[in-house]
């Protein structure tokens, strides 16, 4: 039996960082494609955000025998967010729960683990949660708050006869670990840092080669859509041009800004809602970023 994505839902908080208030708003919008970013309420955590989307899907969650939580902004260093959620949601106790510490490529990483669990018959129904709250690590002056949004996505995986996910291809470059990092600032508070131009050149140097290699491996040029991590308009346009992907096959959706590991499932869900992506479409998904790490796969709904 083959794993496939049966359902996606997501939650974005309603509190906004209004970019329009900035004097260089039009310049930022032109480069990033982002108009507003969203943040959790003061005092809330990634657990509160994930609970919102989970509570809407409780019936499906109760059927799951595995709960995977992808996050790099957990409420506590320990225990894992997945354990906390299992308790708060009242899910059965004979369930596999664990967290994965990955960022913008985290959806692809999580999907590969979930796929492996189903294929090896360890699990049958899996809930894959991707959620991050970078806003907790932005100071008032930190400009990254105009790019990144807090968000939580919930993806359900089941099994069927027809192939639905894979294969996967991954990579990592730990020598550049400090290009996207949360570390102590001069006031000894944890703060988010990103070297945008270095991440941009990494992406341009790495991802086109990765996609070409992947397409060569799957030996299938019948790709309906490409959904990459929604980093920013500039990065996505550069990748689309480098890979010579037709505009109508390359989905860009920055309505919620860069939602890290949730950006692929949110874009996928919104494209399904718009009836752009339909059943049997083959979609290449690719995540890249913090680590630095990257991953690519393909899905058929």
């Amino acid at each position, binding site marked *: 039996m083959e794993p496939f994505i049966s359902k996606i839902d997501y939650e974005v908080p309603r509190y906004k960082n209004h970019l329009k208030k900035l004097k260089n708003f039009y310049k930022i919008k032109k*480069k990033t494609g982002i108009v507003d970013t969203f943040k959790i309420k003061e005092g809330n955590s990634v657990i509160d955000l994930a609970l919102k989307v989970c509570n809407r899907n409780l019936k499906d969650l109760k059927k799951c025998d595995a709960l995977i939580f992808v996050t790099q902004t957990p409420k506590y260093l320990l225990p894992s967010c997945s354990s906390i959620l299992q308790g708060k949601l009242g899910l059965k106790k004979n369930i596999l729960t664990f967290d994965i510490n990955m960022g913008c490529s985290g959806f692809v990483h999580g999907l590969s683990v979930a796929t492996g669990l189903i294929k090896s018959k360890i699990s049958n129904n899996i809930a894959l949660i991707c959620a991050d709250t970078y806003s907790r690590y932005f100071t008032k002056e930190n400009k990254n708050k105009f790019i990144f949004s807090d968000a939580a996505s919930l993806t359900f995986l089941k099994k069927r006869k027809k192939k639905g996910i894979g294969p996967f291809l991954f990579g990592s470059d730990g020598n550049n670990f400090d290009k996207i990092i949360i570390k102590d600032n001069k006031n000894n508070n944890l703060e988010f840092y990103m070297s945008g131009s270095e991440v941009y050149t990494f992406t341009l*140097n790495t991802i086109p080669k990765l996609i070409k290699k992947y397409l060569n491996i799957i030996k299938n040029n019948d790709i309906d859509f490409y959904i990459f991590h929604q980093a920013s308009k*500039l990065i996505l346009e550069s990748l689309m041009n480098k890979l010579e992907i037709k505009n109508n096959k390359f989905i860009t959706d920055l309505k919620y800004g860069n939602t890290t590991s949730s950006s692929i499932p949110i874009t996928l869900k919104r494209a399904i809602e718009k009836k752009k992506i339909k059943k049997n479409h083959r979609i290449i998904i690719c995540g890249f970023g913090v680590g630095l790490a990257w991953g690519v796969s393909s899905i058929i709904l």
Partner: protein
Amino acid sequence: MKISEQDLKKIISKSLNVKLNKINDESNSNKMEEWDSLGQLSIISSLDKKFKGKINLSKVASMYSYKEIKIFLKKKLAMK
């Protein structure tokens, strides 16, 4: 593959949205408000387009002055 100093100045001025005569050997991010992180991204993106992705611009990512970029490209292109 070639790029003249004038072409490089044009690319940087267009990327930063400043007048061409503002770009010279003294131009850098400390002296120009427009040369912020987004400006830097625009410069790299424009250079990548100019060279059709055939030059690795990783080192340019940490170069925040016209002179530095000019010297790097001169060396890089001369080596080709």
